[in-house]
């Protein structure tokens, strides 16, 4: 049984370098791999076989895509049954998914669609997170998503909405600092104020990635480019507040050779270590007094 607390920098496992990871070419270079269970669930053949080899070498964290927590459709029974069976096999410390919806009335669009920042939606999503945790018998972390429009009249800021959801649901937060940076660019959000409104003790994992430009100055969260300096700065700011939590480098498009990706892991790790030194300076070890009887 793995009891060591998960920390350090990991990478999202992708088909592009699954073979290399299975053969050990990332050994000692990443603290963990994160996978999307939907890519392996209800599946046989090569990919799950290769994943077993990766899991023999590395710790595995799971990050789902299709829980659709903001939808008004009931949670998908078959999906949750299979997800629980699958999570029990790999036993990650928590499972994460997104604060979004992916479809309605049974039709799914396989995208992370924004949800309105309202009290009723916060209540609705929190109830579904509690139900999801019960069904999975495992802690759930929810991720802040990139969004390109606000769906309806917002009653609160995104950060206030997230804080309300995770407190009501008593769940954890996967803080994607790239998504925060993208949203800050696209919507003019004050990131320091945003961070101040988030309960940092709920953060169990951090994501970093690189976006790509779209029309009219919009940034698109494609995970298709190296991590931007502004995201490194946010990562340092957040880890200096949270202390050692796992940080994941995501790359889904324009995936470079594994060697280059691991070089970027090293760069992210340097930011991470710098942040940890700041955190440690602010949290010196407590001196213990030994009193003889």
């Amino acid at each position: 049984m793995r009891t060591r607390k998960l920390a350090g920098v990991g990478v999202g496992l992708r088909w592009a370098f699954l073979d290399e990871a299975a053969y050990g070419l990332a050994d000692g270079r990443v603290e963990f791999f994160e996978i999307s269970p939907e890519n392996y669930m209800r599946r046989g053949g090569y990919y799950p076989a290769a994943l077993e080899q990766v899991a023999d070498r590395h710790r595995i964290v799971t990050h789902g895509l299709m829980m659709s927590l903001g939808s008004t459709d009931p949670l998908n029974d078959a999906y949750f049954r299979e997800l629980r069976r699958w999570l029990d096999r790999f036993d990650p410390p928590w499972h994460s998914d997104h604060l979004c919806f992916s479809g309605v009335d049974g039709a799914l669009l396989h995208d992370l669609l924004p949800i309105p920042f309202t009290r009723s939606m916060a209540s609705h999503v929190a109830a579904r997170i509690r139900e999801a945790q019960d069904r999975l018998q495992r802690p759930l972390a929810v991720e802040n998503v990139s969004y390109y429009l606000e769906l309806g009249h917002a009653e609160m800021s995104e950060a206030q909405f997230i804080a309300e959801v995770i407190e009501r649901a008593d769940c954890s937060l996967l803080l994607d600092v790239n998504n925060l940076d993208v949203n800050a660019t696209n919507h003019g959000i004050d990131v320091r104020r945003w961070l101040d409104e988030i309960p940092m003790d709920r953060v169990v994992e951090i994501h970093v990635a690189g976006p790509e430009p779209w029309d009219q100055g919009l940034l698109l969260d494609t995970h298709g480019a190296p991590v931007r300096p502004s995201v490194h700065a946010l990562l340092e700011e957040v880890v200096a507040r949270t202390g050692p939590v796992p940080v994941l480098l995501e790359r889904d498009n324009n995936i470079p050779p594994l060697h280059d990706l691991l070089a970027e892991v090293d760069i992210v790790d340097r930011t991470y270590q710098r942040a940890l030194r700041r955190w440690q300076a602010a949290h010196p070890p407590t001196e213990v007094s030994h009193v003889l009887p």
Partner: protein
Amino acid sequence: MAASGVQGEDLRAMTAIPPERWLVYRRLVLNRFVEIVETGLPRTASKLGRERLAGEVTRFIDQRASQSPYLRDIVAEFVAWASQAWSEGPLPRWLIDLARHELLGFEVSSLPEEPDVPVIDDLAIGRPVVLQQAARLAKYEYAVHDLPDDVTDRSEPACGPTAILAYRDRAHRVRFLKLDPLAAALIEELMSGAPLGEAIRRACEQAHVDLNDAVLSDVAVLLADLADRSVLRGAVHRTDS
């Protein structure tokens, strides 16, 4: 939006959003669907061309979208939709067979091995057989399996009934076997769970072949070949002894 029940401040907020922002989501969804269809059906997609493919996928999304939380299932959902949508139209009739053939390989590569595989005994004439759970039989009107793998190839398949068995080899690679009518009928019967002897008798009837020693010898060769390929695993365990 008002017709969909959006009212008051929500309606005002949503109608104030520039159309370009809504179109970002439309483009993201379309790209994701097109990409997975191109992954699963590369030759069908190439023969359609990028623009026509995007148009067909747009129609699919508008009319049906996906019903599955698994992205890869979009390929099967699209082919099921296209089987209807393309039945009367300008696209060549063989294109849907090619799409079905590509889907066959795509699905067989990832079909799960069910955990409750029955205990296996040696073959017996009175018992059903156990086949590889990822094995699938497909029948086409065109010999689309003969088309080159090259996505840029523009040749067309010959017209004629075609039966293909797809399975996974021991290295997880998908393999295809072209079957003659008797072999196709036999495997179809075996897949339906018929006892071996009954499956042979019915297959001969369907293929209009007399059941004689020569045919039984051919069947034995076929079964041995399927066993070599790890398609035929044995017989369902006898539970009545």
